[in-house]
């Protein structure tokens, strides 16, 4: 009781510091919540896409807007290699009880469940011929409804009543459109929405999944060009996007941990100062008969109060921060995953864990100051003697600090032969220790320059703490390091986040920068499993109004045991609508070289990782044997962590003897 009284009384006395410390904890916890929430959303989006498109479906026949005749189903079923074909209709509809558009899926009860994941948690799936629907739990929560309710849906025949007969777990197809989806029988949907005799899609399961390309071609031929026959994305096809998202998630985690580290540091520092300030009071309490553990308890209670309030505020703040981060990422998520409305995914369990982590971090950080407080000798603490010795700063700090900083930067720039872990650890350690050693002289010099200004403009004399820092260099480090760390974390995060976002945007832009992109699927830039016929490029070129058409293929090769992206372009055409970020030599010179053929570009990441330079030769294994390709340019490319090689597609055709495309633009 006395401990709590004293802890609160101290905070009342030091309102500003208590507020700032609590806010620091709140901001750090908010960052953790936001970043973990963002990660959760990305995982969810990826899972949603995989669930939507995955299952057992290998091919999807996709109709144009007006739909296709249901006779196409028979054609598909008759096609060699097709095991089964399940039709469905899909349409954006309006449900009276819900704002905005809801996705309606008309499915064949009994058949569709075999290829997509439907987990009925209550009731049953809608029956054929009935005006019945099933909805995900997520949607039910939004309308606050229950099984047996009637939902009103706008149909071609006006507003009609539909009975809610099934509630689905928020998984599988029920996660489509972030759960804003209703399922009804196919025939009911066709009747209600004027789709009689029409289908939107046909899911196809093959007898032999390895035969996907052949069956796809046959289906495309038999169904004609009015429909698209798409291969579906598993987790693997969009490798680069997934890698990029994993990279962003990794960064999120790193910054989350840095946020926690800041919590530890801020609390540690704040409590250390608090202990120094309360030294005399703690000495009195010890003299009057407080045990050491009671002194420790007082400091721990102070940390707990900050931790509990800061973490709680952090959760609230984090939710909004996460939403803001998500909104900046949602375009990218939408682009990557074709989902309509990515929403924050952070469960009550996640909140509880994060809150506990925040409070625990505060308690851990308080341990050392609490221990030191308990060791205060009462007789010394109560004496009012105070050292006025000004130590200034030692010259060794300038010399050693500067050497460490320079060495760290040298390792960062020239230490590419070291493993990433060693390089990163050495650099970070050197920079942090170097900064800590350099801080006192730098801070003192900086504040000394500021003192005259503070006196001239604000009449502040000796208020900048120069003398205090001169007496105790450690205080300068304790004050300056959190600021430096905070700034570096903030700028680093913003920089990397912006860079990653820009990279994703550029990557997507690169896909769509031609006016028209023809692909054989939804997202095929990284695919090396399927391909468009070479003749297609020529056909596209001959289409009236087409100015340029370039064939593109992206595939992978093994180089020094690592998977490398191999990007192949019809350079003469490609260079007319692409502006690649060539680092060296000049862009035109690089383009000329690549167009000439017989050489390659490599990505900057590959050059750094393997110490490669322009003019050196890259040995690449081809079906025609190992070929030495001179490196003609280095370009920025974030598609692959191991690196990317750009090659003239004619070279590829020559050495790999394949003309398959994945894209022509």
């Amino acid at each position, binding site marked *: 009781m006395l401990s709590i009284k*004293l802890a609160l009384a101290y905070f009342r006395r030091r309102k500003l510091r208590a507020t700032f410390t609590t806010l620091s904890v709140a901001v750090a916890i908010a960052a953790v919540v936001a970043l973990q929430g963002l990660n959760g959303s990305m995982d969810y989006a990826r899972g949603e896409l995989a669930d939507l498109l995955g299952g057992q479906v290998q091919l999807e026949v996709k109709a144009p807007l007006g739909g296709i005749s249901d006779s196409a189903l028979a054609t598909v079923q008759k096609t060699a290699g097709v095991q089964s074909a399940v039709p469905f209709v899909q349409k954006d509809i309006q449900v009276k009880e819900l704002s905005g558009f809801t996705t309606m899926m008309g499915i064949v009860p009994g058949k569709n469940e075999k290829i997509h994941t439907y987990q009925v948690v209550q009731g049953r799936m809608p029956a054929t011929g009935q005006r019945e629907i099933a909805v995900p739990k997520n949607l039910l929560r939004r309308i606050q409804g229950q099984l047996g309710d009637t939902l009103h849906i706008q149909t071609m025949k006006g507003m009609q009543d539909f009975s809610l007969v099934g509630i689905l777990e928020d998984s599988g197809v029920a996660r489509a459109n972030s759960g804003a989806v209703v399922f009804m029988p196919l025939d009911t949907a066709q009747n209600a929405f004027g789709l009689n005799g029409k289908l939107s899609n046909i899911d196809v399961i093959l007898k032999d999944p390895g035969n996907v390309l052949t069956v796809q071609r046959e289906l495309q031929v038999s169904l004609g060009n009015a429909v698209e026959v798409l291969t579906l994305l598993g987790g693997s096809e969009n490798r680069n996007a997934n890698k990029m998202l994993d990279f962003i998630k990794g960064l999120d985690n790193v910054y989350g941990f840095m946020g926690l580290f800041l919590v530890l540091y801020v609390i540690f520092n704040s409590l250390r100062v608090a202990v120094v300030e309360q030294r005399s009071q703690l000495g009195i309490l010890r003299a*009057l008969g407080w045990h050491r553990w009671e002194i420790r308890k007082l400091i721990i209670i102070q940390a707990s109060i900050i931790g509990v309030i800061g973490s709680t505020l952090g959760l609230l703040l984090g939710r909004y921060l996460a939403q803001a981060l998500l909104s900046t990422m949602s375009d990218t998520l939408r682009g990557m995953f074709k989902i309509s409305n990515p929403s924050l995914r952070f469960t009550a369990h996640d909140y509880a864990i994060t809150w506990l982590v925040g409070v625990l971090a505060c308690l851990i950080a308080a341990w050392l100051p609490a221990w030191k407080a308990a060791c205060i000798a009462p007789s010394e603490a*109560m004496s*009012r003697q105070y050292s006025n010795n000004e130590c200034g700063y030692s010259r060794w700090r300038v010399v050693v600090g500067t050497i460490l900083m320079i060495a760290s930067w040298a390792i960062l720039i020239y230490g590419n032969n070291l493993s990433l872990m060693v390089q990163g650890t050495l650099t970070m350690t050197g920079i942090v220790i170097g900064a800590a050693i350099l801080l006192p002289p730098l801070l003192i010099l900086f504040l000394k320059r500021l003192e005259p200004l503070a006196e001239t403009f604000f009449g502040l004399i000796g208020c900048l703490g120069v003398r205090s820092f001169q007496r105790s260099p450690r205080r300068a480090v304790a004050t300056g390091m959190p600021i430096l760390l905070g700034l570096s974390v903030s700028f680093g995060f913003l920089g990397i986040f912006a860079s990653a976002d820009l990279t994703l945007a550029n990557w997507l832009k690169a896909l769509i920068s031609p006016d028209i992109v023809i692909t054989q699927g939804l997202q095929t830039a990284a695919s090396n499993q399927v391909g468009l016929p070479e003749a297609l490029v020529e056909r596209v070129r001959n289409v009236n109004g087409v100015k340029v058409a370039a064939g593109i293929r992206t595939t992978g090769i093994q180089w020094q045991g690592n998977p490398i992206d191999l990007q192949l372009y019809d350079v003469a055409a490609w260079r007319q609508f692409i502006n690649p970020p060539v680092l060296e030599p000049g862009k035109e010179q690089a383009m000329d070289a690549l167009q000439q053929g017989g050489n390659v570009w490599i990505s900057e990441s590959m050059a750094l990782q393997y110490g490669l330079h322009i003019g050196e030769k890259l040995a690449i294994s081809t079906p025609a044997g190992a070929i030495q390709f001179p490196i003609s340019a280095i370009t920025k490319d974030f598609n692959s962590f191991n690196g990317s090689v750009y090659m003239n597609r004619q070279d590829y055709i020559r050495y790999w003897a394949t003309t398959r495309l994945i894209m022509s633009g």
Partner: protein
Amino acid sequence: MVETAVTRLRESIKANQTWGCEVRLDQVSKQYTQGKETVDALDKVSLDVKAGEFLAVMGASGSGKSTLLNLVAGLDKPSQGDIFLNDQAISGWKDNQLTLFRRREIGFVFQLFNLIPTLTAEENAALPLLMASQPRSVWQPKVSDWLERVGLNSHGKHYPAELSGGQMQRIAIVRALIHQPALILADEPTGNLDSKTGDQMLFILKEITEDLRVTVIMVTHDPMVAAYGHTLITLKDGRILDSAAR
């Protein structure tokens, strides 16, 4: 273990039918190290303070007065010799035992008052009771009585910063006595007060301690203040220069 030692001591005090504590120093020395030099703060001091006695310790600055108080309070340990409280040597006591003893049996009055700035006057006065986790319903009436006794009943809700030096010292005296200790240790209790207020303080201190038969050891450099003691010893360079009973 801790409880047992302190309880035994308390029982021995009660058995002697006085509330005061007998203090004995036997050849006590205390050395401090300052840089490379060793300083003798106390040099083989032997002393016997009877239960209920008011001992004044005089001496110039640096003579070892405060060191003597710190050693008796168990805030510091002697380099040589031993200290006996009611014939029990405290040198073998653990930190927890000494802490509990201070909490229950010693009252402190400091020159700089040493009130807790974030607590009100009545909370400061009740600090030993708050430390013993006594509820407000128990300590509040006691504090009110004591504040009335020292003429501060209207200042209970004031913070130390809102009190004068004399008022703060009266609160400190209440804090030292409210838990009925056996021993009062006063370190220059009037050092920060004007002479009139100082006299009032000493009068209050002497009157109350005599009523309660509490042992008092008070250090001062002022002969007028020292005159309040039953016994006076003078310290110089860590040794007893003179000892006189009144």
